């Protein structure tokens, strides 16, 4: 930011006019088009400056943790879809990996790379949503309409892999339900080829755009120490300058085989959050490319699940035609398999940060307790502190740059 071009609205003190301040109470939400989700903020304003904000959440609370206590492991995947529905496959894979950790299932490399591919596609889709909406809320509608169709292309890959688009229920404990089809590979290759020029054009529209920069730089800054205090993770923490990424800190699903950078910002303002997500999309593309190369080099083109029949639901054709598969299918569905007792914590780098599953098993058919560490829920509580002293319009932009997803917030 060049000096003197922008007055420092941010963190402006509210002038105490000796009790003559006229404070306004404003309800932002629950259903406000700018909140992109159902949650309420009761703002107290002095003119246009936010004095305090109080959040009310829970409007779409669906008691996933309670429902999970009544569901066998393989049925919980559908619950995880509905947390951060912008990147549902990451949630699905995170859950599968948690159960795999509990049961000691080891996956073939090929399956892990396939998982990496869908997870990174999901990350791109998630960041496309967040970044184009930042543009939208800053007044730039073009990217939102133009880049959004690439999310659609990614959904077409999901569709080919698992049959669903938004709430994907992708994969199974121990692998995938089927091998990726040729069409799926074609679509992934098409994205790798055609998306980068679009992303570049998107950057051309916003990254060095004077209006966008003036609007977002110094808007909603959050220093690293406060971000850590609040338990922020993911792009929001990295924008503040902390290089914590679960993929690097606790590599899962063979992420240690890939060469990628963890982009960080400096001030943790809206621009930094935008740029971190932007860079992450490039890194994700690079990871997918590397994974494709590794898969191309493999002789094996057919493995799509681990060979642990006690755990992995067999494909339907086998269930109908093979005695053994039918038996295993029945055993898994009726909960006849022995689940180890124990407790595991597994976390993955979701679209918004560390998505953790704390699973306590008492050997029963369902979890004894499943706690979901939803990154949104934890970092959204920092919003009043970030918004305080800023302008109302900046608060809107801050909120969209934090990428608060109501489904993940409320679980």
């Amino acid at each position, binding site marked *: 930011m060049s000096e003197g071009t922008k007055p420092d609205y941010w963190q402006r003190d509210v002038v105490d006019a000796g009790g003559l301040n006229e404070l306004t109470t404003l309800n932002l939400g629950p259903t406000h088009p700018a909140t992109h989700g159902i949650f309420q903020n009761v703002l107290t304003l002095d003119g246009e400056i936010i004095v305090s904000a109080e959040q009310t*959440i*829970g409007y779409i*609370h669906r*008691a996933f*943790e*309670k*429902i999970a*206590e*009544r*569901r*066998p492991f393989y049925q919980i995947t559908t619950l995880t879809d509905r947390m951060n529905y912008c990147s549902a496959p990451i949630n699905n894979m995170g859950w599968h990996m948690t159960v*795999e*950790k*509990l049961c*000691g*299932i*080891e*996956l073939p490399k090929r399956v892990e790379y396939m998982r990496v591919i869908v997870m990174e596609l999901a990350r791109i889709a998630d960041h496309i949503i967040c970044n184009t909406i930042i543009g939208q809320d800053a007044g730039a509608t073009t990217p939102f309409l133009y880049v959004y169709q690439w999310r659609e292309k990614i959904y077409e890959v999901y569709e080919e892999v698992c049959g669903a688009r938004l709430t994907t229920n992708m994969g199974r404990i121990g692998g995938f339900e089927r091998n990726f089809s040729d069409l799926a590979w074609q679509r992934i290759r098409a994205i790798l080829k055609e998306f980068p020029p679009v992303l570049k054009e998107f950057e051309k529209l916003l990254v060095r755009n004077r209006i966008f920069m003036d609007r977002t730089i110094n808007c909603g800054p959050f220093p690293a120490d*406060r971000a*850590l*205090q*609040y*338990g*922020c993770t993911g792009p929001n923490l990295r924008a503040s300058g*902390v290089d*914590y990424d679960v993929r690097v*800190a*606790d590599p899962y699903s063979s992420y240690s085989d890939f060469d990628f950078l963890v982009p960080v910002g400096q001030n943790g303002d809206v621009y930094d959050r935008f740029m971190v997500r932007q860079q992450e999309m490039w890194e994700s593309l690079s990871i997918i490319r590397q994974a494709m190369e590794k898969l191309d080099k493999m002789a094996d083109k057919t493995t799509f699940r681990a060979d642990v029949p006690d755990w992995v639901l067999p494909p339907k054709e086998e269930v109908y035609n093979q005695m053994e598969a039918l038996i295993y299918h029945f055993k898994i569905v009726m909960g006849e398999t022995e689940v180890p007792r*124990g*407790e*595991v*914590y597994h*976390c993955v780098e979701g679209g918004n940060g*560390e998505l*953790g599953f*704390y699973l*306590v098993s008492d050997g*029963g*058919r*369902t979890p004894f*307790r499943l*706690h979901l*560490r939803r990154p949104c*829920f*934890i*970092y959204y*509580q*920092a919003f009043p*502190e970030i918004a305080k002293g800023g302008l109302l319009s900046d608060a809107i932009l801050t909120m969209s740059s934090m990428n608060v997803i109501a489904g993940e917030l*409320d*679980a």
Partner: protein
Amino acid sequence: MPAFAIKADRDQLVTDRLTAAFGADLLSHERLYDVMCFTVVKERVHELLAFLKNELDFGFLTSICGMHHPGEALELGLVYHLHSMHNGHRIRVKTYMALKDPQVPTATDLWAGANWMEREAWDFFGIKAVGHPNLKRILNMEDFPAFPMRKDYPLEDPTRQDKNDSMFGR
């Protein structure tokens, strides 16, 4: 078993330091999968968390969640996941309390992020964080009559006759 990283030396160091500092109040320590779990009496849980944060570099609070083990003397539990980012090391701290006296000292003075996590534990398990600045329900409505994550709270309407799913799940 899949290879998950175990930080044995860090685990040992933390165990030694905590045993030395808390003695018999540290009720147990064991490694469950890749994470060391420490159980501490609830009177000293705040002291232990502060010790971990200030002395042993566990600067990041990953999550707090409630537990309910019906039938035990100390039914309710609170589980803290702490993370030392510098060392790439996670631990789990547990504390248990009786149903009649579900109170623990708050951790909000150590981590601002504990605020909503403790509100969640209050909302779902009725575990009261003493000293919390704003302890009220968070996801359920204010006048919700129960603590729904306790095991005695039925998932479905218990008066329903048309549905018998006793075979499925618990």
